[in-house]
């Protein structure tokens, strides 16, 4: 099977109707330019947020070591089941649920779960449990202080990990073969555990691509820990977003996320399908690789040009300006992700439990769903188009909002505030119109 896009699935979305795309584009421009007309003059989100504390009893339960261990044991069980099914189950994604679990439930599921509850993957991460177990068995010191992570490394390992995974998902010809899913999972775990043996538990917060992704998206969650005392609070999600860390590599992580969804959109267009349909084998892989890297490079270059190269934005900042504004791209990246994966989740996502009834191909019917087909009518195509456009628009609006607020916080002179924003606004409008154009050409 050669999927139309994003690793898996026999169905792709219809092109977004022209009128819908036009209204969306018009709205984007209007919102952006109203923002330029300046609705507020003092920063609203930059203070460390306070939020409303959750009940102490709930916090005690959530922070209890036994509870945290239980979550990671659940994560470990899920990982083991996925490995066993990928290894011993049927050899095709049409009958083996493991590819759907990886590309839909896990990879796409990270986004809504983290948006709702914060850094969920950190809570469930079985690799943290395994690394701790290995360190204890080998009688090493507490893995926390084996060796500190070099400062310059920052989030670069996570950016590399995300690039490798999205390459497998979007470029590689047979990402959905269970044997490839198995190979990826095993290699990924091996690399992560090896790195954790050197750097300890701190590694995962910077080097585990999926945990970093989940933690970043979790900044947009209404739940968070108050800076300082670590109290769990209900907060303004945008205030959480303003606390995105500014360590090295954070720009790369977000640009890879944005660039890969842009390539996902590009590879679904009829133009790209026509182009890639003419080549086979190595040329196909090279074309896809060039497309993926090209989109990531394009997104990064545009962003860096608007921030690092912007003379007005550069002045008078202790932290590199591109890192100060990168959080404004995060809602845009999340919006794109929702737009591109929504229908995959509601349709292909069903295969994850339909096929789970007979995961090893032995004729079992564990959940009574064996032999059932995906229901392609649960959501209408019109609703899908609306969700896609709404997600991209919402991401854009939040991004513009956040960038404006940061500019006001970072610069005191009125002209500098505006000139620091102009190029970034142009880039955001370009991203959004580009995203809508890709939906149109699907």
């Amino acid at each position: 099977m050669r999927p139309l896009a994003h690793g898996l699935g026999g169905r792709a979305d219809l092109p977004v109707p022209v009128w819908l795309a036009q209204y969306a584009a018009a709205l984007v421009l209007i919102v952006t330019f109203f923002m330029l007309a300046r609705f507020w003059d003092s920063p609203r989100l930059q203070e460390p947020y306070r939020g409303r504390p959750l009940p102490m009893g709930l916090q005690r339960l959530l922070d209890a070591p036994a509870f945290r261990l239980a979550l990671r044991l659940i994560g470990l069980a899920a990982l083991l089941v996925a490995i066993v099914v990928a290894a011993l189950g049927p050899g095709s994604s049409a009958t083996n649920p493991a590819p759907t679990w990886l590309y839909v439930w896990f990879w796409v599921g990270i986004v809504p779960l983290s948006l709702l509850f914060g850094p969920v993957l950190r809570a469930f991460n079985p690799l943290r449990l395994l690394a701790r177990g290995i360190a204890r068995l080998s009688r090493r010191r507490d893995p926390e202080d084996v060796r500190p992570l070099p400062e310059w490394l920052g989030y670069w390992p996570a950016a590399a990990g995300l690039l490798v995974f999205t390459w497998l998902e979007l470029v590689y010809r047979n990402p959905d073969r269970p044997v490839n899913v198995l190979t990826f999972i095993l290699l990924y775990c091996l690399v992560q555990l090896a790195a954790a043996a050197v750097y300890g538990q701190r590694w995962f917060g910077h080097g585990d691509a999926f945990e970093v992704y989940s933690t970043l998206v979790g900044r947009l969650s209404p739940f968070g820990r108050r800076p300082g005392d670590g109290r769990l609070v209900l907060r303004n999600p945008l205030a959480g977003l303003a606390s995105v860390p500014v360590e090295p590599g954070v720009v790369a992580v977000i640009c890879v996320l944005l660039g890969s969804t842009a390539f996902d959109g590009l590879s679904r267009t009829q133009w790209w399908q026509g182009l890639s349909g003419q080549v086979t084998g190595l040329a196909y892989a090279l074309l896809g690789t060039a497309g993926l890297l090209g989109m990531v490079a394009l997104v990064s270059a545009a962003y860096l040009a608007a921030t690092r190269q912007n003379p007005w934005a550069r002045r008078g900042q202790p932290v590199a300006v591109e890192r100060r504004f990168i959080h404004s791209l995060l809602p845009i990246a999340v919006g794109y992700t929702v737009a591109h994966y929504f229908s995959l989740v509601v349709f292909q996502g069903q295969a994850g439990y339909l096929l789970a009834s007979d995961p090893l191909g032995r004729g079992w019917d564990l959940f009574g769903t064996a032999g059932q087909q995906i229901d392609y009518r649960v959501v209408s195509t019109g609703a899908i188009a609306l969700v896609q456009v709404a997600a991209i628009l919402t991401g854009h609006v939040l991004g513009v909002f956040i960038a404006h607020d940061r500019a006001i916080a970072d610069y005191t002179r009125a002209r500098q505030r505006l000139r620091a924003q102009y190029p970034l606004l142009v880039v955001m409008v370009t991203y959004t119109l580009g995203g809508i154009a890709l939906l149109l050409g699907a």
Partner: protein
Amino acid sequence: MRGSRVRSARWWLVASVLALALAACGGGGDDDQAAATTAAGATTAAGAGSATTAAGAAGARTVQVTVTGDQVQTAERRVKVPLGADVRLEVTADRADEVHLHGYDRKVDTDPGSPAVLEFTADVPGVFEVELEEAGLKLVELQVS
């Protein structure tokens, strides 16, 4: 004084963008219609070729595909059919393989010489791929809307 001039200039900008956006909304519809007409014309014109997409006698939409080696011949890479239409897919391949219509999950075996035929009602909207399964060759995309 200066601030208010800057501000009013900005509002002019907003107003002109609004006007531009509305103009864009109004203008697009005609182009779209024109494009659709052209596409329909092209389909009819291609009707005489060896690989054809045309409306059959019984109202069923017929899609013909010929496979020789790695070469796939079709009138269109993406065939658009209305929701609920009857579709007849004819695949002539130079080898024994299996034609798979994804999404609908319909399959038919091919045999060198005689065309493999798949008849179905396009009752699920979306874009679906028709693939020669063993060879991993994409034959055509079906856009049901």
